[in-house]
């Protein structure tokens, strides 16, 4: 990579890794040591919400039940995100390895990988890799098994509790929280559910040690992250980059010279306009992302971008709770009406208030995060919404 600003790191795609040895040495350590190492690393969930991974494992390990599960969330559905697919394609063993270490810590005998319906083409190879993984476990006398469960193409099933419902054979609808998965997850048992990338990083932390991970990134956003870069860029693709860069640095590297906005974190993320590139850090202290980075140049209508996201949410809401089900429809029809001139421009203010209500009253992260793109696009590109 040519940039002076961005450090491309190759922690996780590195194939030169003695998988069996990493697993074996992790299994020799006691659980407290493992949790402390993970805590020390500062690893936060890579799905987007950023919950400290060590705490998730710790809380689950403290539950008294004997039946517990570890689930890998591979329902990568966020628009503009395609990095989990690549991870599962390139280094599936590391994902399983992360699950196995987690299983040791929490005391799980079974793990599941919930695979996005559209990724069925990965299934055969994943099964083959699982056979290899299980053979290694047998060799190490580790009693743990992973099964792949197929999703059916619903975005909402990436929401952890909807994912459990789906795995249990029910309609993928989010549950009320609390209880959280660490207490009541799959089959109502304590469950750790981690994103694909989180599990790989956990595994790599036990290979390299927490310090190597911690050296990278910033205080709030440790380590590196895999980004899915798309849109108006001369080099779309998957890049593992150190966290803590500004959007400006990112655009200098990946932009086409005419970038007017970057959508960070997909449809449920935030739109950063050109004037805020320099002040916005990509990470938990700025704009968090599950990996999706979409660049838009001046040929793009931000109205169309927002309309597209709202169409997506309108369809992908599970339909269960009022703010999300009806709110998404109202936001979409509302911006259409303003654009057509059927509603006055100040109707956008009303819609912003509605988006705010959705953000604080929707049952799950889907409905709550619609406001992110809505606010950031409407506020920054108001004239494109009206004219």
């Amino acid at each position, binding site marked *: 990579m040519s940039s002076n600003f961005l450090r491309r790191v190759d922690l996780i795609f590195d194939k030169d890794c003695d998988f069996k040895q990493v697993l074996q040495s992790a299994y020799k350590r006691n659980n407290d040591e493992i949790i402390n190492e993970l805590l020390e690393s500062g690893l936060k969930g890579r799905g987007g919400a950023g919950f400290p991974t060590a705490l998730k494992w710790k809380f689950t390990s403290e539950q008294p039940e004997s039946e517990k599960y570890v689930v890998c969330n591979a329902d990568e559905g966020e628009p503009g995100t395609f990095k989990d697919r690549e991870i599962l394609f390139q280094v599936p063993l590391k994902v399983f390895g992360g699950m196995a270490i987690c299983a040791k810590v929490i005391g799980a005998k079974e793990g599941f990988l919930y695979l996005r319906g559209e990724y069925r083409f990965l299934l055969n190879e994943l099964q083959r890799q699982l056979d290899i993984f299980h053979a290694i476990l047998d060799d190490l006398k580790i009693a743990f098994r992973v099964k792949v469960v197929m999703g059916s193409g619903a975005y909402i099933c990436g929401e952890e509790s909807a994912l459990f419902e789906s795995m249990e054979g029910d309609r993928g609808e989010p549950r009320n929280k609390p209880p959280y998965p660490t207490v009541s997850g799959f089959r109502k048992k304590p469950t750790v559910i981690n994103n694909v990338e989180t599990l790989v990083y956990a595994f790599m932390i036990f290979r390299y040690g927490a310090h190597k991970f911690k050296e990278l990134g910033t205080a709030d956003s440790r380590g590196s992250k895999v980004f899915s870069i798309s849109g108006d860029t001369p080099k779309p693709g998957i890049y593992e980059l150190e966290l803590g860069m500004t959007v400006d640095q990112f655009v200098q590297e990946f932009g086409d010279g005419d970038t007017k906005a970057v959508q960070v974190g997909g449809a449920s993320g935030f739109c950063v306009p050109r004037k805020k590139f320099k002040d916005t850090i990509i990470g938990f202290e700025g704009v968090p992302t599950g990996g999706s980075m979409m660049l838009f140049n001046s040929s793009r209508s931000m109205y169309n971008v927002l309309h597209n996201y709202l169409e997506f949410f309108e369809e*992908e809401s599970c339909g269960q709770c009022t703010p999300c089900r009806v709110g998404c429809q*109202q936001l979409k029809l509302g911006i259409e009406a303003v654009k057509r001139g059927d509603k006055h421009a100040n109707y956008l203010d009303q819609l912003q208030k509605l988006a705010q209500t959705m953000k604080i009253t929707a049952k799950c992260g889907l409905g*709550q995060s619609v406001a992110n793109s809505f606010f950031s696009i409407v506020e920054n590109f108001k004239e494109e919404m009206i004219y």
Partner: protein
Amino acid sequence: MAKQINLIIDGMPVTVDEGTTILQAAKKLNIHIPTLCYHDDLCVAGNCRVCVVEMKGSRTLPASCATPVAEGMEIYTNTIKVRTARKHIIDLLLSEHNARCTTCYKNGNCELQDLASEYKISEPMFIDLVPYKNYQVDAFSPSIIKDDSKCIRCQRCVRTCEELQHVSALGVAYKGDKMKISTFFENPMFEVVCTNCGQCVNRCPTGALIERNYVDEVWQAIFDPEKHVVVQTAPAVRVALGEDLGLQPGEIVTGKMVTVLKRLGFDSVLDTDFAADLTIMEEGFELLGRLKKALVDNDPNVKLPIATSCSPAWIKFIEHTYPEYLDNLSTCKSPQQMFGALAKTYYAQKRKLDPAKIVSVSIMPCTAKKFEADRPEMRSSGFKDVDYVLTTRELAVMIKQAGIDFGSLPESHYDSIMGVSSGAGVIFGATGGVMEAALRTAYEVVTGREVPFNGLNITPVRGMEGVREAAIKIEGTKPEWSFLEGVELKTVVAHGLTNAKKVMDAVRDGKGKWHFIEIMACPGGCIGGGGQPIPTNEEIRRKRAEAIYREDAGMPIRKSHENPEIIAVYKEFLHEPNSHKSHELLHTHYKARQRY
């Protein structure tokens, strides 16, 4: 004792058991938080979000119905943030809802309407979504009409159908803006496993699920001078009708109800309880007959246990779910249909009326009775035995339409014939009542003595437990029943179809060794029927049941076989229980149906 949790709601400290929700804790402080998807009888869904509250330290507004209390929690139920959010949510629901309230059957009894009024929703805040939807009305069922344009997707009906009834005729289909409550393959309710029990109707907060009403048809018949309109009233109606007319749950309004029916213009006001007594005679002797076949004749084909057949939703449930057990059902028609068959035969003869000119109306706590009356088997008089079935709610509508002040009415007695009943007939309205009534008669027939329970009250079969077992040892039999000497008659009572399933699974698995099974499809029995006043909850149902047992205790005759009109109908018309004529008019058969 559960762990105690201290929290503060609107500045007031409160201590509650661990596991209590914020909603329940607020109720303890007499703070009303609005709800829509919440229902006392159902599991918590937390999907309408109307009950959101502000919680100190929380970014979001949690749903109070779904959030358990925690130590030190600080809750605010009435802040500008909460009010704005609730108003938005109500507005959103209204934008998706066909809000032509003036022409809605539920106008005046709609929880969404109440909320819109409470929050003074004036101009619609958002775009009307109804024109964008292809809303359909399913009006094919004789019992229940489903209008998706009124649905607010609270899923109370779905939970009712699944949790209380184990039927799951209603489920959630599609997602996002297309999400709707639907049936298997979106077939009409009439063609799926729906039992017509109407429990969903009782719990629908809006007009999305209502009974098919026959009020206008009945008015037409009443004002047709050619027609003689007879009306029968089911046991459970008299302890619930008052609720729709301004009285409290549990008030017995039998006498007022008879007066009002006469005032409305019915030509003869008669009692389903009479037919309930008749059912006891027929079903009691059917039970004894089957016991004799099993114990004396060692007939391998005799079907035991015998199950009651009074509840038409239970009948449809077993037809769909356990068709292999149809022969275990009593062949007795329900009291409504026995009454109907006699109204156009025995009654017509005695009153010298042309049965073709008799219109037979029944007032039922039930929506499934509408379906039952439409069954092709129910024409043994040569006509449709029961022409129109009205729910308790529809009767209340007629009373209001007629401008009658129900509360101030005097009491009067049922007409004759087929208007006299016993306490045993009355208790048909509560779960366990048929069992108790049958035991009162059967025991006495066999032993010549009254059942060995204080005041004839067979308390082990009473109550609100979902499944209740009771055994009664038969001793000192009359000579002709000596084969029953020493036999312990084992019975089980279940109400709500989820409990019916438990009983039937036990029968199927050989775990339930019973002789006699009573099943009522609705929670609490008919007093909790799908045609009863809305709202319903366990407390209301308990009050209605208590009223039923009070009514029984106050009756001069407590046993079906002592009802003089029952003695007369056998003497003059039917000859004896399970006679050829009885079988022609009072017994029926069932039909296996598909599981989907």
